[in-house]
């Protein structure tokens, strides 16, 4: 993001796409031409207090545009028999490792594809592609979350139907909470190397998720981490959240996660 306003919207790049700025359709950054350095000293227009303005009732959701595209994505996924999952966590919780393990275990059983969101590099998409599953990397530049439009654009390039679409969001427990991508479920991954109070510190993301995967549980013997406290905290902000404890390294709990996934996929296929 720029130092003045924090924006980074023109920096989004999706694989197979020309860099933003080269005729990219997104026109979000209105003040770029003005130059940020001078903008801080821009003259202030003083209104005449006697001059009455007209009041316009608007009453529109600020995220309305994102929500419209997300609804379109959701309808599209449903009609194509796709279960779309939005995987969210802080950086380093083990999303990609768990995803790679999941793809390897389900290889040959389910059709799968992955949309990878990161600020920079295609390292994660490369790890996914090494499993043989198609993956497309979105680099958000300095942007902190994926939005529905990015997913729509990426999805069109995957030519994918009848299977599970994993959308690995940018590692961030704050911003992805507000941006519906059209997924059937958000799945939050919380690792045991983080604090038990993460759900209370970042309640919106845990409140928006259907399932919490507690990852890296093979490390528990070496840590002072109370899984029950983590689960109780998650249920304080989301009484209905399902919880599965997993270790991608030892395979512990992965069967239960795959069962959850299979049930969710069956549901998606049944309602297609």
């Amino acid at each position: 993001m720029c130092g003045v306003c924090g924006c980074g919207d023109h920096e989004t790049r999706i694989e197979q796409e020309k860099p933003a700025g080269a005729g990219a359709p997104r026109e979000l950054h209105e003040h770029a031409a003005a130059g940020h350095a001078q903008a801080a000293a821009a003259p202030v227009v003083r209104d005449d207090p006697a001059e009455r303005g007209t009041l316009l009732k608007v009453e529109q959701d600020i995220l309305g545009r994102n929500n419209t595209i997300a609804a379109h994505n959701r309808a599209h996924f449903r009609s194509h028999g796709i279960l779309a999952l939005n995987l969210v966590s802080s950086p380093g919780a083990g999303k990609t490792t768990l995803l790679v393990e999941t793809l390897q275990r389900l290889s040959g059983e389910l059709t799968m594809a992955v949309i990878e969101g990161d600020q920079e590099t295609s390292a994660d998409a490369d790890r996914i592609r090494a499993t043989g599953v198609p993956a497309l990397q979105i680099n958000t530049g300095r942007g902190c979350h994926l939005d529905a439009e990015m997913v729509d654009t990426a999805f069109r390039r995957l030519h994918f139907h009848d299977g599970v679409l994993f959308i690995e969001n940018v590692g961030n427990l704050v911003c992805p909470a507000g941006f519906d991508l059209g997924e059937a479920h958000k799945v939050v991954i919380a690792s045991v190397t983080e604090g038990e109070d993460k759900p209370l510190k970042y309640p919106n993301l845990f409140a928006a998720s259907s399932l919490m995967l507690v990852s890296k549980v093979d490390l528990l013997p070496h840590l002072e981490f109370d899984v029950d406290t983590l689960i109780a905290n998650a249920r304080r902000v989301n009484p209905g959240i399902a919880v599965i404890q997993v270790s991608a390294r030892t395979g512990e709990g992965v069967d239960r996660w795959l069962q959850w996934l299979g049930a969710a996929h069956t549901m998606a296929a049944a309602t297609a």
Partner: protein
Amino acid sequence: MHEMALCLGMIDLIREQQTSHGFSRVRRVVVEIGALGHVDPHALAFAFEAGARESPAADASLEILEVPGRAWCMDCSESVTIGRRGDACPNCGGYTMIVEQGEEMRLKELEVL
């Protein structure tokens, strides 16, 4: 800093309003932000100041109305006010609550010239 993205969404809505109503500029922008949502009002105000430049809302004041959080407590079968997600029910101390209100992010009205 998703407030910048929200702010750019607001400016898109303001431009749509300008197209339909033909005003020259905006003097005051009123938004409703839920207390339980993911928007930090200070970050939104900061983002708006920067993001509204070169738009019809440049120099407009931003008024943020906070919508209080309300949740349905499943234990006492009552709608209660809560300040944050994860707060206990003020009546029974339980946490089995379904949020009913407080996630709003709404462009409510514009004062235009």
